[in-house]
């Protein structure tokens, strides 16, 4: 408990002085200049999250639907197992994979490569959460829908998903919190940037990358302060995602949160 409190304490203590509206909106530009900000890093993290969700959420949802609805057979068990394996993948290996496939294919570092890497990390979490949330929907609902003559696919999409939405949204938000903090895969795929977004096939910055770069240059006081400020912003972002989950599922049973 104590070490964890210490981390938060240090981050807040060192990061708070750096925060200002300008700091949060200016681009990094010259890292040795005290007026350098983290606006592009914040934008980059948001864009990467958006792109990653666009890739991972539909795939994960449908994979989860498959596993929950049709997955009682050998193929389903295999998929479930492979999904768990994918979830245990070290992020650095995923980074190498994304590098070898996307960066080499496009020809240079890009936001797309980073999004692919992050979505491979996000996918198993969404799939697992979706599957378990859907499984929690009692058969009585499905039976009622079937009794009303609603088709299977309609039942799954409109009724079961909607009932399971809390759990699914929980899973999505928690996985976003996870990927927002991933550094290793981004190191190999997006290069980093001192400027704002300029295209999905261009390098992009992100908060964890910014922290790492600032750490490497922490002999310049402005860079060090910027690094702590970026760490604070990242921690706040991640914590508020978690708090949001808490808030939205208040009064809820614990099943939805059991699979983080």
């Amino acid at each position: 408990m104590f070490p964890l409190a210490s981390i938060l304490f240090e981050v807040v203590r060192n990061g708070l002085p750096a925060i200002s509206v300008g700091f949060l909106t200016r681009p990094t530009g010259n890292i040795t200049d005290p007026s350098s900000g983290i606006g592009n890093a914040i934008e980059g993290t948001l864009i990467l999250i958006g792109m990653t969700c666009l890739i991972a959420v539909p795939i994960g949802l449908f994979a989860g639907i498959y596993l929950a609805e049709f997955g009682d057979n050998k193929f389903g068990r295999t998929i479930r197992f492979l999904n768990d394996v994918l979830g245990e993948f070290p992020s650095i290996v995923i980074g190498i994979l994304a590098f070898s496939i996307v960066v080499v294919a496009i020809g240079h570092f890009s936001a797309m490569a980073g999004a692919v890497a992050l979505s491979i990390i996000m996918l198993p979490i969404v799939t697992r959460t979706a599957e378990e949330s859907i499984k929690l929907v009692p058969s009585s609902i499905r039976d009622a829908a079937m009794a009303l003559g609603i088709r299977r696919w309609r039942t799954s999409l409109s009724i079961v998903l909607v009932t399971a939405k809390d759990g699914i949204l929980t899973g999505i938000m928690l996985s976003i919190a996870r990927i927002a903090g991933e550094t290793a895969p981004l190191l190999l795929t997006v290069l980093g940037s001192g400027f704002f977004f300029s295209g999905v096939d261009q390098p992009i910055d992100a908060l964890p990358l910014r922290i790492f770069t600032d750490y490497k240059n922490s002999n310049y006081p402005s860079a060090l302060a910027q690094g702590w400020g970026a760490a604070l912003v990242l921690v706040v972002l991640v914590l508020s995602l978690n708090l949001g989950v808490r808030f939205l599922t208040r009064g809820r049973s614990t099943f939805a949160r059991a699979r983080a």
Partner: protein
Amino acid sequence: MAVSEEARPKQGKTPARARLASLRFPRRFSCDDVFEASSIIFAGVIVLIIVVTSVFLVRGSVPVLESFGTGFFTGKNWIAAAGSESYSALPFVLGTLVTSAIAVAVGVPLSMGIAIFLAEMAPWSVRNPLSRVIELLAAVPSIVYGLWGLFVFRLWIRDYLETPISNYVGSFPVFQGTPLGLDFLTAGLILAIMIIPTVSSISNDVMMAVPASQREAAYSIGATRWEVVRTGVLGYARSGIFGATILGLGRAVGETMAVTMIIGNIPALPASFFQHGATMASVIANEFSEADPGSLHLSALIGIGLTLFLFALVINVFAQLMVWRVLKVRGGSVE
């Protein structure tokens, strides 16, 4: 609930053609089939990713495995200088094993303690905020752990843990070496801290989901508070707690940034807690961008990636086996 489970036809087992034939509508694929097919395709993406990864890792490792054969897994050198290259995954495999073992050995009991406290003993006013705080702390990114670990934590460990140990039992082989705080022990302890939130919050949820009937049954036969926890709750929740441990272990094995900044990054066989070392993840992170494409060095790094991949596989297989065994023993009464 059980009745309708059986009554519902097992879609996966009925051939599509038979289903089609049973339709009274004009012959066409029903939306249900499209739905099932498309969901299979999406689920298949997972298989695709794993297959692509395996192919890539295996193909990339072939050069180094051809050059060194099983020596890649049993040697103890890692020399990347051209002309005298010698690669072995063993130092890193052992490094990963040692740090993960420390992480689990220290982290899981602590997590259990926290989880038991939260689930069984904490008053309501403390339980909710505290469990919320723990879950929030699971979200701290690993690079932040790395920074804190490098500048704060390792100095504590060095001054309050390692130096006293070194003074008293420094002659034991496992405690040899100058304690500087940048070693297997600190890396393992940081990993332990990192897995505590995950393991304890899942264990907590699992324990809280144990039906009251289990506890009541234990109380009713006169068990003490601790015995209730031990037999009524922990026994029932065993598989879930085990699953939490496996998740924690998986995270410890794959953790990159925090470990790279703390472990000292020297490929050496672990012989002492106070020794520098490297893990599979840290060496890949350190050296991957440098290695020339097509070189033996790169192949060796991909070989280590393959080893990590196999680790993840083995951990999961093991977890499945354990859970399956528990299921068999308990007759399937697992949530």
